[in-house]
């Protein structure tokens, strides 16, 4: 636990010191969402129908964009190798890094998502489910993304490759989240979708750190 807190605090502090870099995925999120009405139609009813999917797909892309800085700078300056050489559980270490990444990237996405929902006229009754699905699912995005990043860490131009590896794994998250939001928009029960997403989150928390540790071992060879 002390190791977890230590790494978590360190990564948050590093993130705060580099806050401009952190803003990039958020700006990307806002920009891409605002491109859709320009490209499709400014029509109110049509955008309302589209909004859940658009916000979610854009959130996926923004999350993917930010994945690379989870390990990259630590890998480049060698501190990741030193951290892995420390005594103590590597799984805890990796979990702390992923948690810090989620707090610095995923949480801001959740916070500005309501704003995006106004731009796309998401029905008001669906707004809580948008926030809840984002809250449950963005940690999953960070976890699964960590695997892709860890596998491609030692490669040049690994960013694109890691997106290719990660996107198929995002399919269930995308499906359950948008289904929940669309169900909420027509006042249907949604708790089943939340339960499924939460189950997926728990499985990911339990299994993914092990896969990431194994992947980092391969990257360090």
């Amino acid at each position, binding site marked *: 636990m002390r190791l977890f807190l230590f790494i978590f605090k360190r990564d948050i502090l590093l993130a705060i010191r580099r806050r401009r870099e952190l803003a990039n995925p958020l700006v990307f999120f806002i920009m891409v969402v605002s491109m859709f009405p320009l490209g499709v139609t400014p029509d109110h009813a049509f955008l309302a129908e589209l909004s859940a999917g658009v916000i979610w797909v854009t959130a996926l892309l923004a999350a993917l964009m930010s994945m690379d800085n989870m390990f990259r700078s630590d890998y480049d300056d060698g501190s990741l190798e030193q951290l892995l050489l420390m005594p103590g559980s590597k799984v805890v270490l990796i979990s702390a890094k992923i948690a810090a990444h989620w707090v610095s990237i995923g949480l801001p996405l959740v916070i500005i998502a309501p704003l995006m929902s106004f731009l796309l006229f998401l029905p008001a009754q669906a707004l809580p489910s948008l926030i809840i699905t984002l809250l449950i699912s963005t940690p999953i995005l960070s976890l699964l993304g960590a*695997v892709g990043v860890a*596998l*491609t860490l*030692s*490669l040049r131009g*690994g960013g694109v*490759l890691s997106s*290719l*590896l990660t*996107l*198929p*794994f995002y*399919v*269930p998250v995308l*499906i*359950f989240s948008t*289904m929940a939001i669309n169900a909420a928009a027509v006042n249907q029960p949604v708790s089943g979708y939340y339960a*499924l997403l939460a189950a*997926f989150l728990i*499985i990911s928390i339990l*299994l993914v750190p092990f*896969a990431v540790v*194994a*992947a980092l071992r*391969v*990257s360090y*060879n």
Partner: protein
Amino acid sequence: MFTFLHKYASPQYFYSWSANWQKWSSVIAVLLMSVGLYYSLLNSPADYQQGETVRIMYVHVPAAWLSMFTYMVMAAAAIVALIWRIKVAEIMIGQCAFIGASFTALALITGMLWGKPMWGAYWVWDARLTSELVLLFLYFGVIALSGAFEDERTGARAAAILTLVGIVNIPIIHYSVEWWNTLHQGPTVSKFDSPSAHPSMLIPLLLMALAYKAYFFALLFKRARAELIFRERNTSWVKALLKESV
């Protein structure tokens, strides 16, 4: 048991015993394929609703089965490669990914050709089509990752980890897509007590499925052997082998 495993999985031994396996699985594949094609294309009834187009099933369904079977083989190879670091298993992962991607593409293409006359469209966003498409993406990921490293063995181990992450995710992806949208007919063969397909269609289908499996093993052994002697080109046994054959 482990010494046994290591002996038979050592590149040199594998190369010599797999020659026979490759030969016999090719022979079985050709035999089954010719019988199966005869029955399925010429000597089986046309469907009362679908007419002659039902014959696409005999190439489509075995390809779809094989696309999933290949992933299982690949995952097994991945486990062996990660635990025992056996070179032959590492080679199998990359080769399985190529073969699996080809059969997934074949299943998708034959499915599109079958879908046009039946559903009136080449593509619908149906659950099975979508999960097959995602499977194709997973195969592409494994192929891309295993080829991205300068050191082949590192690439193989990275691909092995990705394969195992995928095997946990495939059921989740499958069911998520299933609940999302479905138009495809339910399974008609796996209900073994009372298959809803008539034997006159079921038997050619199973013959074709076995033929595909045999062809898969023939292909896998052939590709793995070729890749193996390429990777081991600087070892003494490959040089001796080359001298012998020249």
